[in-house]
């Protein structure tokens, strides 16, 4: 940059948005609480009661603790997946080039590492996600939060029979360019995903930096 600030324009902001710490903390708390209740229920049920009269009530309490523990674990898993979708570990994706101008073409190379795990509906795509700040309101306060939305996506179906698949994508000339900001960011990536019924899609991705 021909200026006094050494960093490149639009790179190095604080907004990532891909995994909120709130979700991570909530997930850990729910999982810990769930495991605690589950362990308590199991131990309590296994120990039984010395008093025959209260045995039924104690068994009911143990079962309730176990079920409640499982419920908390399920909530924790959902909170975790909301922030961080499952990784499609049997794929690896690379983008070439990893830095290009708008209007340029990027090649997504998808290597299928474990064909046995490949499911139906696999796709590879080029995605641009916009992260932006909003004000949220609670009963007693307002706070800033980040939200995101897809502003560009193009998907091609994958043929998992091949171990290495190349798909080419064009970044539209009028699409947003990459920007890592504080209140507004645009992140581009090539992504391999598997669409799954009633569960979050699993995906693996490689970042692409799109220049103006």
């Amino acid at each position: 940059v021909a200026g006094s600030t050494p960093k490149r324009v639009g790179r190095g902001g604080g907004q990532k948005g891909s995994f909120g710490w709130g979700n991570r903390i909530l997930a850990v708390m729910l999982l810990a609480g769930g495991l605690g209740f589950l362990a308590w229920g199991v131990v309590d049920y296994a120990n039984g009661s010395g008093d025959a009269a209260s045995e039924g009530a104690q068994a009911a309490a143990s079962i309730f603790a176990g079920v409640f523990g499982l419920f908390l674990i399920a909530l924790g898993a959902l909170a975790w997946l909301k922030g961080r979708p499952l990784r499609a570990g049997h794929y690896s994706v690379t983008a070439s080039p990893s830095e290009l101008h708008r209007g340029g073409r990027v090649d997504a190379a998808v290597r299928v590492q474990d064909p046995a795990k490949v499911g139906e509906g696999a796709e590879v795509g080029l995605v641009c996600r916009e992260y932006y700040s909003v004000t949220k309101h609670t009963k007693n306060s307002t706070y800033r939060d980040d939200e995101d939305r897809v502003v560009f996506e193009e998907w091609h179906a994958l043929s998992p029979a091949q171990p290495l698949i190349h798909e080419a994508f064009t970044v539209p000339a009028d699409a947003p360019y990459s920007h890592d900001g504080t209140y507004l960011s645009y992140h581009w990536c090539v992504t391999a995903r598997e669409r799954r019924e009633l569960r979050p899609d699993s995906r693996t991705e490689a970042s692409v930096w799109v220049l103006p």
Partner: protein
Amino acid sequence: LSPKLELTLERDEWAPGERVRGRVLAVEGGRSRELGAQLCFCEASNGYETVAHSVPARAPLHTGDLEDGSSFPLELALPADAPPAWSGPGGRLYWEVRVRSDEFGVDTKASREITVVPPRRE
């Protein structure tokens, strides 16, 4: 008394790598410690605004009180990789020239948005 500033530029459209030129006119003079200018690449999203990147002038435009009608040339280097403005559903990115008179109390400011044309590629 605070000065009143007016910022004019040679043109509104600039290319990356160019030097943005203009003048700052003190329409009304006043107390000032220093008059400075900078180019700012700004981001705005739902009422939140910040400067993502700034390029200050090499030196202050003026030091000391401003007299009525005094005028100061400004020249700021637009980075070679300066991105053009962008406006999306969640916010916008844009460049502007900002001048500020550093004063005791609230500073006097003036700003003007500029259009940065996309870089030409072979």
